[in-house]
């Protein structure tokens, strides 16, 4: 099995075995395949690229072609233990609406995204007066799919607006190292390359906490 991208490894570590997981923007299914093999997770995927979808299904994964912006509405509420949106929210047209759907569909929601508050991004704007073009943000401004970039602080503000409680927050370094952070701390917003948040909708704490900790597989 190929080694996972560092942010996906960090996400995989957050997921208990035998849970039901929806990976929105699952790409070629690396994370889903890993979770199925290592944690016996009942995984599903949604992916925009039909080519990636076909590759996933040929690998035995359950994936549908779909768009996070338009297709999440059809999913019923609270049917997944965990919903994952990795490195995708910045490419959606309506990030707040997408996040609200994720919080509705899953008992827990994991979101990872590049941090636009990183010092190098700030420096690029400050010194060169140009939009940043870094390893994680490797597109020129007029051709980037990342139309809704945000800083960690921006994301935290939006998660409050979506009615989410932060359960865990992890900072990702350039080298792929992870460390827990306080979501309102100033340092990660300046030094972290990216962040991973585990959220849940407010008012869903008690029952959901049991299922995630025990790793019990809930009924459909």
């Amino acid at each position, binding site marked *: 099995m190929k080694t996972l991208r560092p942010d996906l490894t960090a996400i995989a570590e957050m997921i208990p075995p035998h849970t039901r997981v929806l990976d929105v923007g699952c790409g070629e299914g690396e994370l889903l395949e890993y979770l199925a093999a290592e944690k016996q997770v*009942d995984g*599903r995927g949604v992916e925009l690229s*039909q080519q990636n*979808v*076909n590759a*996933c*299904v*040929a*690998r*035995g*994964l*359950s*994936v*549908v*072609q*779909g768009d996070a912006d338009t*297709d999440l509405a*059809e*999913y*019923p509420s609270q*049917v997944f233990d965990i919903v994952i949106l990795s490195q995708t929210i910045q490419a959606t047209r309506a990030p707040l609406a997408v996040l609200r759907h994720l919080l509705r569909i899953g008992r827990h929601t994991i979101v990872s995204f590049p941090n636009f508050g990183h010092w190098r991004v700030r420096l690029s704007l400050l010194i060169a007066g140009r939009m940043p073009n870094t390893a994680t943000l490797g597109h020129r401004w007029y051709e980037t799919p990342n139309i809704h970039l945000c800083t960690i602080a921006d994301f935290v503000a939006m998660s409050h607006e979506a009615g989410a409680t932060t359960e865990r927050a992890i900072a990702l370094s350039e080298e792929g190292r992870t460390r827990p952070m306080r979501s309102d701390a100033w340092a990660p917003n300046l030094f972290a390359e990216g962040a991973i948040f585990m959220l849940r909708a407010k008012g869903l704490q008690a029952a959901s906490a049991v299922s995630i900790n025990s790793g019990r597989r809930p009924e*459909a």
Partner: protein
Amino acid sequence: MGEAITFGADRALTLDSGQTLSPFTIAYRNYGTLNADKSNTILVCHALTLDQFAAGENPVTGRPGWWDLMIGPGKPIDTDRFFVVCSNVLGGCMGTTGPAETNPVTGEPYGLSFPMVTIRDMVRAQAMLLDALGIDKILCVIGGSMGGMQVLQWAASFPKQVVSAVSLAAAARHTAQNIAFHEVGRQAIIADPAWKSGAYALHDTSPAKGLAVARMAAHVTYLSEAALQRKFGRALQNRDSVSFGFGPDFQIESYLHHQGTTFVDRFDANSYLYITRAMDYFDLAADYGGVLAEAFRGSKTRFCIVSFTSDWLFPTAENKRVAHALNAAAANVSFVEIATDKGHDSFLLYEPELFATVRGFLNSVAAAQGVAE
């Protein structure tokens, strides 16, 4: 030839129309070997004019079975691993009871006295066949076009028996356009004076012209404009200039005539009427209060829905409707759209992505069920 099981008066089939069919026979073929714990059965459902001879040589035509590319040792539906069953649909004309068979009450062919059958009736009859074969769990039900309709009906009617379901180039309902094309075909048959109100067998005639026209019209719907243009364009048939007459000047005309005339040798006109009607009546959501997702509520079946970009008969949108309904029911579903210009018939052809999809899906389902490789 294949096998057949006849269900006597004690196993009468009550149809959606309210009528009862008894006795009746289901003709089928099987491939591969049923394993000890009976966990490796794949039920293949055939399309409108196909039959139980899915793989190997078709004993009637002497040609390879219609899915010989897909089914066999080492193929995606691997007969070294799976026990494959394919039966001729109710109302068909390859050994399963249909309008060409003798009505035991009158001693004459049924003709139009044959009761109307539906997709659900076809599935009920298949379920009786599998029961008679001692199989109560199906690893996968798979089929394209009308076969895909049966797949969806199977999953809705018998969710506990169906471990997984693959529907190719199908839909959960016939649209107005689908019904319209079928009606053109039926009217061509009915307008043939040799049809004799369906009693042509008694009059020793055959509505071959009407059936051939029906087939010609239908065949166009199975192909795409791009494929027709690529294959035929405006090329002329055995001539350098147009004839200023109504003979088959163009290659596409000659091709369609060939499709029509070869079809009448292997298909019964009344069967064509009955089976096209069964497809027209199919509307899975209607049985569940008009909400398609309700047909799959609580289903533990694993689904794979496949469409083809150039299929305008059962387009991606109709297939996606099914995938969306399955999502809404929180069912386990994959949806694959395959890019090809070969139209509706793509599911019968060698499409590498289709084969990779079916192979990957079946292997994954079989591994999860502990079916030996």
